[in-house]
Structure formats: structure tokens, C-alpha cells
């Protein structure tokens, strides 16, 4: 199976092509240019470099979110355009899961963090667990806490309660490293540059596993998973709730 994978959820833009367990090519940049200027030119360059025939791609894997709203949409619209033109399915891969997959093989708790602004992080907790009991085993990414948006304080509390050694990675590390150092009571480390950011190869590998489980969509069906409402929707809901509360209080006062 040949998969083209894209991730533009954070500061990194990354594209990769995998075929039957082999990474044919990967292109990753972590530079200030917008993903709109980098993502497709990178795929175009990769295509030329590895003589990729687009028609031979079986599926497009995309980091579906969370992440920067605009970044997610650039990735999603690109994947959707490719999938529509090539008439191929889209495999939506949870961004934080794919980020965790960087640390294949560790027995430590994996904790990716992405800067989610408003003093929150997009995060999740993962372990690699043994699947086959024989001499030759495989490791599977097991989700201990599904990807979500929470404050660093909340995250630190959860980790302190779990009491496990933990490895952090992701573009939230430079932003929150000092806060974590202050808050954490468990042993921890930060992953090095070779494996601490989004890589499309991880999106492709996880994508293939999801595809085997029947998780894929048409181009039209796919939309990012933001894990957050827009500000306007949130404010409107809060206003509605405040109004309801007030009405309830008035009712209670009457009675």
C-alpha cells in the first residue's frame, strides 16, 4: 500500500510517502514561512525526487487535528484536493497520536505537547505496549489519555498522580518547559531534535494501521478535528448559558 502523508498542524510542515513498510521519501521543514507556501511545493519536490506517480498512491493520510486552525485547514484542503482529483480516500490521523509515534520503542510514558494558546496545550498520554507474546513481538501505540486541550497545570497534576517517568516532545516544549520543571514531581526528559516534532512518516505509518481498521473518508467527508469551538461560538454559548442561569435564578426567586 502506498500512502502520501501530510502534516501542517503546528510550526512544522512535513510530507512523506511510504510503501509497504518502507519510507520512500520525507520532507520536513520547521521554518517561519507559511504552510501555504511550503506544503505543496515540498510534495512537488518529493514527487520529482522519487519519481512518484500520483495515480499510484492508494490513500492520503492527514494529521486531522488538533493544531493551529489555519494550519489544519491548509493541510486538510490540500489533502481534500489531492483525494478528489486522484479519487482516493483520506485517512484522518489524530495529530497528537502521530506525534507520540516518534518515540517508538520506549517503555516510558509519552506526552506530546503542542502550544494551544490561551495558556493551554494540545496533549495526550501514550505507552507502547507489547502485542505478540512470542520471541518476536510488535509494539502498539496505546492511548492512556486521548488527545485534548488542557492547561499545563492540569497536565502536570495528571502526570504527578500517575507517578511515571515521562518523555515530552512537540512545539509546546520550548513554550512550557520552565513551567513543567516547576510543576512536575515525577522524573521527566525532553526528546531530542531528531524525534521531537511532527513527522509525516509517523502520520503515514499510523494512517496505514487506521486504514486496516476501516478508518478512512472521502474527500468531501473530511474536515479537521479542532477540539475547540471558534471564539464566537464559545462566547455565544457562554452568553446563552448565563442567560439560562439568570432565568433559573429568577424562577427560583419567584417560588
Amino acid at each position, binding site marked *: 500500500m502506498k500512502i502520501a502523508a501530510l502534516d501542517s498542524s503546528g510550526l512544522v510542515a512535513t510530507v512523506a510517502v511510504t510503501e509497504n513498510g518502507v519510507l520512500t521519501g520525507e520532507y520536513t521543514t520547521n521554518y517561519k514561512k507559511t504552510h501555504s507556501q511550503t506544503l505543496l511545493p515540498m510534495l512537488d519536490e518529493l514527487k520529482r525526487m522519487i519519481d512518484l506517480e500520483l495515480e499510484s498512491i492508494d490513500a492520503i493520510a492527514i494529521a486531522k487535528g488538533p493544531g493551529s486552525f489555519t494550519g489544519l485547514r491548509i493541510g486538510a484542503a490540500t489533502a481534500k484536493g489531492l483525494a478528489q482529483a486522484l479519487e482516493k480516500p483520506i485517512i484522518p490521523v489524530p495529530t497528537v497520536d502521530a506525534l507520540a509515534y516518534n518515540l517508538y520503542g520506549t517503555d516510558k510514558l509519552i506526552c506530546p505537547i503542542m502550544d494551544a494558546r490561551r495558556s493551554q496545550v494540545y496533549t495526550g498520554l501514550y505507552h507502547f505496549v507489547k502485542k505478540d507474546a512470542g520471541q518476536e513481538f510488535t509494539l502498539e501505540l496505546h492511548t492512556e489519555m486521548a488527545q485534548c486541550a488542557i492547561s499545563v497545570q492540569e497536565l502536570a497534576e495528571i502526570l504527578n498522580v500517575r507517578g511515571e517517568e515521562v518523555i515530552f516532545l512537540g512545539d509546546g516544549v520550548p513554550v512550557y518547559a520552565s513551567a513543567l520543571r516547576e510543576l512536575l514531581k515525577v522524573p521527566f526528559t525532553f526528546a531530542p531534535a531528531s524525534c521531537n516534532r511532527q513527522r509525516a512518516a509517523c502520520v503515514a505509518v499510523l494512517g496505514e494501521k487506521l486504514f486496516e481498521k476501516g478508518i478512512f473518508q472521502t474527500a468531501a467527508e473530511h474536515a479537521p478535528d479542532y477540539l475547540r469551538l471558534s471564539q*464566537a461560538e464559545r462566547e455565544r454559548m457562554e452568553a446563552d448559558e448565563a442567560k439560562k442561569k439568570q432565568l433559573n435564578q429568577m424562577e427560583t426567586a419567584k417560588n
Partner: protein
Amino acid sequence: MMESTQKKDIYILAIESSCDETAASVVKNGREVLSNIISSQIDLHTLYGGVVPEIASRKHIEKINQVIEQALEQAGMTLKEVDAIAVTYGPGLVGALLVGVSAAKALAFAAQKPLIGVHHIEGHISANFIENKELEPPFVCLVVSGGHSHLVVVKDYGEYEIIGRTRDDAAGEAFDKVARAIGLGYPGGPKIDKLSKEGNPDAIHFPRAKVEDNAYDFSFSGLKSAVLNYLNSCQMKGETVNRADVAASFQKAVIDVLVEHGIHAVQQYGLNKFAIAGGVASNSSLRAAFEKECTKRNIAFYHPSPIFCTDNAAMIGVAGYYEYLKGVRHGYDLNAVPNLRLGERI
């Protein structure tokens, strides 16, 4: 031999997502619209009293493929059969633009088609070519919408000179604000147009602003304030406001200025063709006023049907066709340019 000398038909697939409409269209030879699909989000934004950029972007990404698919299907074509893909890359809401731009680039890349970035307002102006087959540059065009008020000399296809612009509010913006003040809600333009028909346009005299150093520039914020002051003073005096009269008088004040500037421009530039474009160009009183003044002076007056005045992709296909003929091609690094200027090429 005959066949090889015949001109090949050019089909452009066009995509537009600069504000709150997700749209796609197939246009043949720059003048014939084979499909014009528009998915409007207006009901959603009405809840918020205006377009919310993040919500608009989210809706675009949900609709973009369906709209493109329908446009191709209705035109009876496949992606392989189109000659080029045109897309609006500015001006507009950056997050909204990026959805159309990213999708168009991916389609162009995967289907190996030329990519053409199109200016949204050049699209609006080009909408006039759809139903007026005889219309060719040069002519003067007034572009009036929620975000734009421009007086433009269209010198040739794809060649524009802006001779007048708004100094503050766009005409459509003034409509929206006044509509809100008299309790009509969003979108203001069509609602004021409708209510005006029941009112007396001469009931209240609102000011017609002149801009000192450029006879073609507009200013609508003073007019808007005058309406708000009038409403306030009525309230203070305890007088009931005749909303229809306010709407009609306000609308007349806007139209008087637009018509005066437009006619002045077409005469000064020695031209005999005048066109209007943009969302406000579907205002019935504005059309009637221009029709009357142009006829009086033997100026040919053009306007698109309302469906081509609103944001749509057919107009992008038309503008894209003339860019295509000129050899304009964009790379896969094409970015959204929210403040793209008319006539500017990036």
C-alpha cells in the same frame, strides 16, 4: 486541415472562498457559464450579526469538495477535461481564502493543470462579460460591495486603473450599519432596498459627502453618523421614527453620490460605457438611477444579474480566462493575499 485551424475551446474551473460563500464554476471561453454553484453561509452568520472569519473558514472546508464536484457535474465535465484552474487569492478573509487556494493548488497539482490566481474584485468587474457578450474594454466600472467601493477604469482585459475609492466605510458597510441602527438586521443591503420602496426618499435630507482632493473618492461615514444622529434626536424628542423614510432617504443619499461620481468619471475619461459590479450592484434603486442617468447621456449601462453580483465563482472563471490567455500562471507556492490591490500581480 479545417479542424486544426479552428480555435480550441477553453474551459476554466474556478473556485471562490474569499468571504462567506463557497463557490465553484465551469466557464467556457470566458463568456459562457456552464455551472455556477454557490453554497452560502449567510444564515449561520446572521446569528452573529456579521461574518465571523473562523466560522466562515470552517464551513468552507466542509463544503469545498462538494461544490467543486457539483460544478463539474453540472457542466458535464471531468477534472481532466478542464484546461486550467482559477482561484480567488485576494482580497478577503485570509483563513477563508486559504481553503480555496489550498484546494485549487492541490487539484491543479494532482490533475497537472495550470493554476491561475485571480483578484476577487477583478472577478466582480468581469461578471459583466457573462451576460453582455458585446461588452469589451475600455469602460468605467463602479464596484460596490460590503467591503469595497471603487471607481475603476477598465482599460483592457486585466488592466485596471483605480480612480476613486472610499476614504472610510464601504457603501455596503454603511448599508449594514444603518440597517442595524433601524433594527433591520443583517445583511443590511437587501433589507434597506426592500423597505425603501415603502418610504419617501426626500423625507429627510442626509448629507452628500464630497472629498476635497479627489472628485472620484467616496466617504460614507459622515452619512452613517448623520443617520445615527437623526435617530438619536428623534428618540430624545420622543418622536416616532418612520423607518421606511429613513431607509429611503439614506439610500438616496448613497445613490446620489455613487451616480454623480460614476457619470462624472465616464464623461471625464471620454468613454461611453459604464458598468456596476459587486453585492450592492443588485440594489434595485441603484440600478434604476444609473439606467436613467446613463440613458439621458447616451452612455451604455451594464450590470450583472443578482446571481453574478453576489460572490460567485463564475466571475472568477471569466477573469481567470483572460489571465489564462495572457499566459498568467501561478506556482504551488501561491498564497492568500488578504490585502491584494486591484491590478496588482503577485
